[in-house]
């Protein structure tokens, strides 16, 4: 990437933003990466218990966990209910979650932001 050089090597007086990746392109590329991670790569994630759950099992307090109140959610445990194919069920759940998070967090950021100029 030549982007790192734009500030340091730019001759004084040239427009600072001229060679930079446009914001919309950066955000779009980042979202594509996030959707691929949530929708495709997540299938290959480790299914071993995470650090906390492993410790809970080893130290005998895993059993104190209650039934989850949202266990009936259509995406409970990152699997889409009614979809038999594991890869598809997980991928759909991941994409749905990413879209919901984007809408909520992006919306919140736009509401909270300073209106510039």
């Amino acid at each position: 990437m030549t982007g790192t050089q734009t500030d340091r090597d730019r001759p004084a007086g040239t427009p600072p933003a001229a060679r930079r990746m446009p914001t919309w392109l950066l955000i779009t590329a980042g979202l594509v990466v996030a959707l691929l991670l949530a929708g495709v790569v997540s299938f290959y994630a480790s299914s071993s218990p995470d650090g906390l759950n492993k410790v809970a099992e080893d130290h005998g307090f895993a059993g104190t966990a209650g039934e989850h109140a949202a266990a009936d959610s259509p995406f409970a445990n990152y699997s889409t209910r009614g979809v038999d194919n594991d890869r598809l069920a997980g991928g759909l759940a991941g994409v749905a979650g990413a879209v919901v998070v984007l809408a909520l967090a992006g919306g919140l950021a736009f509401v909270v932001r300073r209106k510039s100029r």
Partner: protein
Amino acid sequence: MHVPDGFLDAPTSVATGAVAVAAVGVALRGARRELDDRTAPLAGLVATFVFATQMLNFPVGAGTSGHLLGGALAAVLVGPWTAVLCMSVVLLVQALLFADGGITALGTNITLMGVVTVVVGWAVFRLVQQLLPKRVAMVAPAAAAGALVSVPVAALCFTGLYAVGGQAPVPLGALLTAMLGWHVLIGVGEAVITLLAVGSIVAVRPDLVHGARRVLASRTLEVRDPEEVRS
């Protein structure tokens, strides 16, 4: 590190719930200073990226995995106040839609993963940034240092909460050792992912990265001043 319902007793969960509500309330005010038309889209991207990456459990040893928490990553990219909001949105969606992290434990999870990792990650990032050369290239390594420390500190805080409100009797020394042991390893993974993600954004648009503002300002002042005078 999503705490399910039932690990901690009701008073502890209420207390962490109050901490979470207060933190989000303060963050809503603080984030105003960090977010403008240019950086608001990045906040949406960061939250989405944290959600996606939290699905990617990586193995850290015998039958155990870990995933990015993302507090340090978010704090460096969009600022600590906005990071608290991003993390809270992720944890809320995970609890309600994915049954990941208890609903009565939502306050605990926001406190541990949305506040502790952000505060520790940002504090260590700023400290390391002071020690390293004042260069844009140092932003990602400093962020990785914050990420590395943030995970075991969150594990330490969980152990503290468990000491106060754990529902099953567990020897605390052994619990602390096990929590820290696994989460130091998970912290290494957290540091690698943070290094790559922050490094990528810094490489193409350092001007959008909250944690790069100070180093950019000190260096480009002489270049930007004539621009502003002219316009």
